[in-house]
Every structure is written in C-alpha cells, then in structure tokens.
C-alpha cells in the first residue's frame, strides 16, 4: 500500500527542452494535488515520470508504505492507476470485454467490476462495442476501471474533460471517497477539481 509519494528536486527533459527542474512534492495518504499550468508546461510529463514511463533527468520519485520505502517498479505495478489522454480501449471489442480485462489486469474481482460499472452508470452499455460509445461514455468506462480495482495512487490526466455535469459531480464524489479511504490523487487539470486539495502550478 502506497501511503506517501515523495518527489525530490525532480528535473524533466523532453527533447532538447528542460520542462522543469528542482520540483519537490510530498503527497501523503488522503491528499490530492492538482497540477495546473499552460499547455506544454509539463503536467502530463510529470504524471508519466511518476508512472515510470519517462526517466527523470535528475531527482527521484519515491513511494513509501507504512513500513518504509517501496521498490518503485513493484509499487507502480501493484498500487498505481494511470489515466492518460488515450484510454487503451479497443474499438472493436465490447465494453464488457474491455472493462473486465483491464479491471482484472489491475487486480479486480468480477463482482467488483460489475459494481463499479453500476456506480458509473455504464452497466447498460456493457454489451455495446466500444466504437459505439460517446467520448463521455468511454471516459466513464475507464473511470469504472479505477474503482473496480482498488489501488492507492491515482495519476489522472484531465480526468473530467469529456464528462457532463452530472458525471463530473459523481466522479468528484468518487475521488472524495478515495481520499477518505486513504488514497492519493495526483491530477493534471485546467479547471479546479471538485474535491479540492492543494495546487501545484507549473510554468513554462
């Protein structure tokens, strides 16, 4: 269980450009941090560094459990949800196939998957092919994956963008419940997220 995420004097380079340097962040269980900043400031890159996709130029990313530091690869594979711009859904497969696979891949039980689909209101869409879903419905399917498999650290890139007002409110409640249960959220967003929390502004 990840109880704390510590970024120490992190520097990230993309191509020739250094996006940011000397970035420090301490995120404890039950806390949320919203990354803000203009396009190209490095919000997505920071999330990808924490997820382990990009190696930082300098500095470190540490995951800590109650018992001490965790091995980063292990922590990411077992206790980390990533929600990026692309949702990883195959257009030709049914929503049910995709949700069940990704939920089980991240460690969910079948019962938990169905409950999650009901919570997000996508249980009626499960027999449709993914190509038939709207952008908002696809996003809700992906969010169902987040709550189907309980993992502590959520890395969210613009999680609300294609959602309608009601779904935004619902996902706000879900995020608040996740924090209450001891989860951690690091999210990139242009609009403030409904559950509040700290803000970390990146500049170009």
């Amino acid at each position, binding site marked *: 269980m990840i109880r704390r995420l510590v970024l120490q004097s992190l520097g990230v380079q993309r191509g020739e450009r250094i996006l940011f340097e000397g970035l420090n962040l301490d995120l404890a269980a039950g806390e949320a941090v919203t990354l803000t900043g203009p396009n190209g400031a490095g919000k997505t890159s920071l999330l990808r560094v924490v*997820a382990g996709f*990009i190696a930082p130029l300098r500095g470190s990313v540490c995951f800590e459990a109650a018992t001490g530091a965790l091995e980063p690869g292990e922590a990411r594979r077992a206790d980390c949800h990533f929600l*990026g*711009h*692309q949702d990883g*859904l195959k257009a030709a497969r049914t929503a049910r*196939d995709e949700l069940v696979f990704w939920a089980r891949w*991240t460690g969910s039980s079948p019962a938990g998957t169905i409950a999650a689909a009901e919570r997000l209101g996508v249980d009626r869409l499960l027999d449709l092919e993914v190509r038939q879903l709207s952008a908002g419905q696809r996003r809700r399917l992906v969010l169902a994956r987040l709550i189907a498999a309980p993992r502590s650290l959520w890395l969210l890139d613009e999680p609300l963008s294609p959602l309608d007002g009601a779904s935004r409110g619902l996902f706000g409640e879900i995020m608040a419940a996740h924090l209450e249960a001891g989860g951690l959220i690091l999210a990139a967003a242009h609009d403030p997220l409904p559950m509040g929390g700290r803000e970390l502004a990146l500049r170009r």
Partner: protein
Amino acid sequence: MTALVLLLRRELTLAWGRGGGPMLALAFLAAATAALPLAIGPSPARLAAVAVGAAWVSLVLATLLSLDRLFERDFEDGALELLALGPLPFEAVGAVKCAAQWIATGAPLALGSPIAAIALGAPLRAAPLIAAVALAGGLAFAFVGGAGAAVALASRRGGVLIAVIVLPLAVPPIIFGGASIWAFTAGLPWETGLALLGAYALAAVALTPFAMAAACRNALS
C-alpha cells in the same frame, strides 16, 4: 499465472479479430500457391521441383504479413501504458503476445502449408515434416518478428524498418527448414535441419522478449 492466461486469452481474441489476422495469412498462402503455376508454367515436373521451396517461402511471407501491428495498436491507443502498470513485466507481456500470434496465425499456417506444398506437387509423405517445420519456423518468426515490431514502434515508416530488421534474422530458419524438407524429399538425412530450426526457435523465444521489453519502454518514454 492467472495474469498470463488472462493476457493470452485477450491477445488470442485480438489476433482473431485483427485485420491482418489468420484468415488473411491463410488467404495469402493460398494466393501465392495458386499464382505460382501461372507464373512459372503448369508443367508438373517443373512445379514439383520448386514445390517445397515455394510453399516454404510463401509461408514465411504470410507469417511476416501479420506481424507489423503486433505492438503498434496497443501503443497507439494507450493500452501499452496500462499493460505496463499490470502484474507482468514487459518481457512477459511481449512473450505472451508473440505466443498468441504463433497460436492464432502460425498454427493455421502450419496446417495449410502441407496442403499448399502437395498441391504444387510435393510428395505426400513429406506432409508431416512440412507441418513440423512450419510450426517450428512459425515460432521463430513470431518471436523474431515481435522483436522487430517492438523496435519499430514510435518510428515513422515502421513497416519498412520491421522488414529490414526481421528479414536478416529470418534467413537462418528459412535455410534450416528448407534444407530439412529438401533433404527428406531427396532421401537424405533431414534431422539436422529440423534440429537446428528448433534450436533457433527456442533461442528466439528465450532472447527476444528482452529486446521487446526494452523497445516498449523506450517507445513509452
């Protein structure tokens, strides 16, 4: 273990549903077999002389045909990122994808290739060996091709790159398999070629997953 089975089942369904799936590979094999007599003339003696080699080359090309999208679709739609945060390391993910490719495409082709060879005039008694060679060769091509497909990720004109990477690596199994079948039809010892082909396939299974994993990590960064 359950994660391996879970991923294998998904990859098999995806391979069957994919555009360049088993049916396309089989259709390619059938088309190449049917076109050969039109190109070199219908004389049975002339056809029988090249039957085995032609069937083998058609099989190789049919296998390579379906490889280029092996990692690319998962890379493009973001599934590779989610696979990275699952229970298996990329080495295992790559190996499972190639194994699924072999089961879904290699096995049907291994069944189809003796039929193609015999239709061109190869002796009937060579059919089991042709199937065995096709099966072992398909395993080698799936893993070597998977490594090529992974290396070509995130590069423009990836298809050309795959061909440039994979074709040289596909030469030894082509030689081993072709030599084994040829020796068998000529009544010579054929076991060495098959053994070398099997050894090459196993080496590919053992080594290429590391290349695939490194290439996938590189593509994500």
